[in-house]
């Protein structure tokens, strides 16, 4: 049994005999019809994107409102009328819903438009918004737009310096309430930031990625396109070749033995790209046929105790645009992981056929 170094603070609870921060699941959805299924499966919170007609007509697929300039998938709520329905469902079940506006940057023209959307949504009961662009954070504070901000994992690196900068934004009606770690932070790095905030008396909620959509690259540093008509850049075919042309006296790969460098020139696509059809069918709701494998595209389940110990209170299950079937099963899996918190045979019980090995936090 592990030793848990957690101090008794208000809000801490007991899971499997271990005192820790009560962890809640926050899951993404791409259409109103999926909400109740995800709530029934055990989601404690939900998040969605909202891209109204006015944005689509003005910016087409040139400027994403929240990182996904796609129109041929169910990844966004597209009308205020539907957001009212989202609100009604959320209220019926007492489930908080956040709205994501987390593009890496916006142009000056777009900031007041976004503030207008936030005000529209605030009027019908939404008060939590996920943002990544520091200029948008600055603008919303400056304009005192009523909202609670969750700083997205796409913001960039959370460290004691950037947290101090975020903490400097204060206005009467606009507050940063949650910080979200990106997928490539280690639990140790999260603990470092959370403990710093505790020492400084900064009270934030902390969220970490828990399942799905791992990527070779970091979202905050990804400036490439995510659109309907082009493949994601991280899925393009590539070839690994030795680097030549070194300066005199330098060792190059050509100087090393085969054993030292492994294969030489090789053609590759990553495993995810090899059979694109199979992947799409699985994740987009078009004829899922493969057996379900929890966290196949990214998983942090084995790090659950480390995340709890670090002080993470919210576990993100991403997958706006994934099939509701997959999301529902992911939430049930994550719920089971929480139920079996600290139990040594959890992995065998959750992954009877073996896991994908696609770890966020390994």
């Amino acid at each position, binding site marked *: 049994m592990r030793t848990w170094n957690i101090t008794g603070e208000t809000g801490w609870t007991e899971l499997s005999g271990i005192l820790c921060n009560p962890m809640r699941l926050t899951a993404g959805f791409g259409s109103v019809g999926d909400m109740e299924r995800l709530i029934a499966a055990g989601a404690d919170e939900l998040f969605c994107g909202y891209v109204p007609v006015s944005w689509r007509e003005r910016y087409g697929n040139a400027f994403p409102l929240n990182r996904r300039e796609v129109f041929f998938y169910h990844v966004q709520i597209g009308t205020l009328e539907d957001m009212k329905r989202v609100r009604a469902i959320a209220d019926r079940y007492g489930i908080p819903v956040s709205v994501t506006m987390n593009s890496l940057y916006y*142009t000056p023209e777009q900031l007041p438009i976004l503030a207008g959307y936030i005000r529209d949504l605030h009027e019908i009961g939404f008060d939590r918004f996920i943002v990544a662009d520091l200029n948008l954070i600055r603008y919303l504070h400056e304009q005192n737009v009523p909202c609670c901000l969750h700083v997205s994992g796409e913001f960039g690196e959370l460290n004691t310096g950037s947290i101090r900068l975020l903490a400097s934004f204060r206005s009467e009606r606009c507050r940063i309430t949650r910080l979200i770690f990106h997928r490539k932070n*280690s639990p140790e790095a999260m603990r*470092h930031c959370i403990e710093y905030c505790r020492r400084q008396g900064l009270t934030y909620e902390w969220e970490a990625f828990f399942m799905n959509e791992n990527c070779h690259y970091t979202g905050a540093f990804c400036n490439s396109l995510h659109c309907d008509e082009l493949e994601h850049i991280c899925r393009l075919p*590539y070839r690994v070749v030795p680097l030549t042309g070194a300066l005199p006296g330098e060792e190059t790969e050509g100087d090393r033995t085969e054993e030292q460098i492994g294969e030489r020139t090789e053609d590759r696509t990553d495993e995810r790209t090899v059979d694109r059809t199979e992947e799409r069918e699985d994740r987009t709701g078009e004829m899922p046929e493969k057996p379900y494998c929890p966290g196949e595209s990214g998983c942090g389940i084995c790090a659950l105790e480390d995340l709890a110990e670090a002080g993470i209170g919210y576990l993100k299950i991403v997958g706006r645009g994934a099939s509701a079937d997959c999301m529902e099963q992911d939430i049930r899996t994550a719920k089971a992981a929480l139920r079996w918190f600290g139990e040594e045979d959890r992995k065998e019980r959750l992954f009877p056929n073996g896991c994908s090995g696609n770890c966020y936090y390994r």
Partner: protein
Amino acid sequence: MMKSDRETRDRQWEYPETMDQIPYGMITCLADGRELTVNDLSKAHVSVCLFELPKTPVTEVGFVIWDWKYGFVRRGPFPVTDSTVTQEPTGYRMVLRICSEAYAETVRQVADEYSEYIRLKLGEEGNRFSEVLTRKQGAGSGKTEYYPADRDSEFSVSAEEWQDKRNADRLAEKIAAFPGTVALDLDRKQLWNAFVTGNLNDRVPPALRQRYSRIYVGNAFCPELTPDDSEIEAIIRVCAPRERPVGVTWVTGFLRPGREDAERERLRRIAGLCRQYGIPAEAEINDWGYPMLVRDLPECSEMILSYGRLLNKRRRDPRQNYRTVMPDLRNQIGENSLNDASFREFLTSLGISRAETESPGYRMIPTGFPTAVHVPMYQTNTSDRCPLRALRQQGNREWQQDTCGADCFAGQAQAAGISGTDGRDGMTPEKLRYCETAVCLYPDHLNLIGRYNSLFAMDRREADLYADLEYYGRNGVDRIVWNFM
């Protein structure tokens, strides 16, 4: 429509009488002064979801649909012949019946687009879908470029061939004529060590060898690729005032949590050495944590901070030009946060007085900040961990373990208090500098290359790039920085 055309269309009409589950972006209904999500539709009806009942009977509807050539376009209004409303747990469902050939044509267009998209995505090999869809965007507009999927199998056989095909000497000659400062981006150990030993000119295009007056040292994208203490001092010694003084900009990457103290110390040492040798201290910062770190250091009070390339975000993808951008957005594509005067004031309040950017394959709109433009390579993607290392060690980029710094560079790892030896395969740090020995090449037409933890593309527009550089020179860009492939 000609009869034969219609017959062709009808043959394509293989969808069920009613289509449902239509993605949000393909079609939206406009009725009763509201934007409404389409639940299902056919050539004779549309069913929509409402939260509240309409105030008056709906007599006509319009639609906003996606069109590859024109973006979002409006269709209608179409007269409604009949409607029924049923209550649902959250709101109402309204079925509107429409008898209109123009409406039926709108539905057919949506169905065709969606059906084609699904067919292309599921049925076509490779990136053929990109070729078809980008060709559709340009149809009739005179635009001839589309994604050449058949060239996705054409690769250079070596990194050397990749470089040779992209001989950038002509661009270097243009840069040499730039009226402002010309700088070199020494982003890896071999380059800054070559600078110290006087061997750098072997790598510098002939036109720039006597032209550069500043160097950038360190890596904006990989925080492990930074000079150690002895290298910093050696570089400063070479740059110190002499016959031909060379300015230095110290480049910092993103700041890993836990490394703040080490990085604070490094900045302090750099500032101290710069002062000792009479060199102005300047740093390109690529993390929001740095302004606060520098604020803590009285030694760095005179350090010039430049808003770095990782922070200065914009669309950077070599395939950008295969897409059609609506004419009224073409200027705005060149803008980003830095075009906002209030944001520039905010940066100034943080002590940031300059900016770095890269030529991303299209013209950027000047910002009012003194700016350095890095050419010809621009970053598209970067990882906190090292995909190249994961690939070489594990055969898959996705399984990235730990941070590259754990074993790429022993000195960095030691500074971070991390064990310098990888226990999994017993290799020592010295043998694990994958970024010095291998790269990932992408299909040649993309001009894309994977180095260390990042992807970079090359701006190869030539004439347009020359024109852009001249334009930038007249509009606040005071430096061109040559980066090495």
